[in-house]
């Protein structure tokens, strides 16, 4: 009897311990779970529901308006401008900041110890408060006293005047930059790239340390003589996972651009709404004008874009974009 009982008792003890462990586990995860629901999931649902209403803060009730809000988003010219501005920004900033990040990483990796100095410098904008730097850029781009136009004026009368842009500037005046609807969004893009490429650079530098040296030797044996060949044969495929990640995170960050726009044009999103990006639209419609229905609809679209991007990334990672 005793022989049979002992393991049973042991089994009972382990189940006790297991039950205990399950209970503790739930206790430990409960705060995180609760907050995840309250702060992340409930708001998404709230936005989803409100996007079908005409709710305003302060009103006792609201009416269901069906898909009116979404209808407006796709048919009004303001929102057309919003989509154009947002996609212009994303489509410009992401490829250029990724390419510059990769280029900088490759150059820095190949110049030896001095490279660390460049790395430090290129990373500075990532650390700095973007709003402060936006204001600094605004001064740089000031039409009359800014450094940029002053610098351009100095080129007048030199050989550089053969460049049409400079010639026009010298003959008439140089651009107003932030006040000019042809330039505004590109200036914002430029600052986005200026701020973000250092981040991509350090990710690529981390990726590069993981590329095996033997691969380069092997590639050379196989006839990849030029650095260019070796890059496409070894480096680029080995950096596949890094690239997927860098592109996704750059996209998500680019979609969220706000600080520069709000700093330059507190009202209206730039000359002729040329820089009226989605985050600014959410802020202006939802918060400032209290049009919560339309703000929520923009929020939902925004979430769809971001989730879609991240899911593509995960899918690519799972397919193992990994040859190195």
């Amino acid at each position, binding site marked *: 009897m005793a022989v049979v009982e002992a393991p049973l008792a042991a089994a009972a003890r382990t189940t006790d311990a297991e039950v205990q462990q399950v209970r503790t586990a739930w206790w430990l995860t409960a705060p995180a779970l609760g907050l995840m629901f309250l702060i992340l999931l409930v708001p998404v649902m709230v936005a989803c529901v409100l996007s079908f209403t005409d709710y305003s803060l302060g009103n006792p009730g609201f009416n269901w308006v069906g898909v009116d809000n979404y209808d407006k988003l796709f048919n009004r010219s303001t929102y057309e401008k919003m989509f154009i501005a947002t996609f212009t920004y994303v489509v410009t900033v992401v490829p250029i900041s990724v390419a510059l990040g990769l280029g900088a990483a490759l150059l820095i990796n190949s110049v030896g110890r001095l490279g660390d100095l460049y790395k430090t410098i290129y990373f500075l904008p990532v650390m700095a408060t973007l709003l402060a*730097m936006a204001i*600094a850029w605004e001064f740089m781009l000031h039409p009359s006293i800014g450094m940029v136009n002053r610098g351009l004026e100095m080129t007048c009368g030199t050989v550089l005047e053969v460049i049409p842009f400079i010639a026009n500037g010298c003959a008439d005046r140089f651009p107003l930059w932030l006040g000019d609807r042809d330039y505004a969004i590109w200036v914002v893009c430029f600052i986005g790239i200026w701020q973000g490429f250092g981040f991509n650079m350090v990710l690529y530098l981390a990726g590069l340390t993981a590329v095996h040296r033997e691969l380069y030797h092997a590639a050379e044996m196989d006839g990849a003589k030029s650095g260019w060949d070796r890059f496409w044969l070894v480096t680029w495929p080995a950096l596949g996972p890094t690239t997927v990640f860098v592109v996704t995170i750059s996209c998500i960050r680019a979609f969220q651009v706000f600080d520069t726009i709000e700093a330059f044009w507190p009202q209206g999103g730039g000359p002729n709404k040329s820089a009226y990006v989605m985050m600014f639209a959410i802020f202006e419609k939802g918060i400032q004008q209290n049009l919560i229905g339309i703000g929520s609809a923009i929020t939902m679209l925004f979430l769809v874009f971001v989730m879609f991007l991240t899911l593509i990334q995960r899918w690519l990672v799972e397919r193992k974009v990994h040859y190195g």
Partner: protein
Amino acid sequence: MTRDWWKHMILIIGAIIVIAPFYMMVSYSFKSPGEIDRGEGGFFGRQELMVDERCVKLRDPNRDEIAAAAPNYPGQSDNEIREAIIAEAEADCSMRPVVFNYSKAFTEAPLIRYLMNGVIVTASIFLIQIVVALPAAYALAKLKFWGREAVFGLVLFCLLIPVHAIALPLYIMLAKIGLTNTYAALVVPWTISVFGIFLMRQFFMTVPDDLIDTARMDGMSEMAIVWRVMLPTAIPALLAFAIFSVVAHWNDYFWPRIVVTGNRDLFTPPLGLREFKGDGDGSFFGPMMATATVIVTPLIVAFLLAQRRFIEGITLSGMK
């Protein structure tokens, strides 16, 4: 080296463009309004004594003050006395541009208060994030329980939701319970860091089970294990996460802009700078750039001192 000259050329041009706005920001914070207008004075400006017009205007004597001061200037007409007082004020109000800019930065707006708010908000966010995320990460990594996969799946799903994107519904919810314009509003949306949970879970997975078993044998409770066994092993990851979190929230402008309206006591540094810009006239470029420099400096200095750690922390999000 000679073969690499073109690489250095490109890198140096890049570095100049990257540094230009920093250079300008710091340089303007040293210069007098006139020098900024005319674009002269090099990096530091000439630092000639300048007169603070506002300060002089404040001390412009009225009739009573002139009468009160009359005994000090025997035998002079009121006008002469007035001029003498103003001359005195001008002497008192003249200072070097750099002193003018930085003292204005701290006196025109309660900049110290803003900086304190920044510290309070970033510190509370980080502490709460850790208190919430560590136990959850430990449970997900080391405890076996029914529903663990589901919870982890939820964490992975929530990683898809950027908090800035759902700012509007969060703002509505906070407004409904009357929390806008409070410290709580600045902190609450950031208390849950799904990324933190994910990161710490990945880290805890690498901690050997033996360590935990030994602690259990010693009779430690699970809570004690989290804080006294797991936390110390996770210091490097925590430090990286701290940098990630502090940089993000010190620099954040969007969320504070939404939930803090008008109440200057709650302004974080970026909001303070924004306000400065809003009501500044042209002559205030210097003090404004001084404010910007003050706000940007802490993180930049910390970064320069501990570069490796910072780069690790910021690129943490690249971990798989």
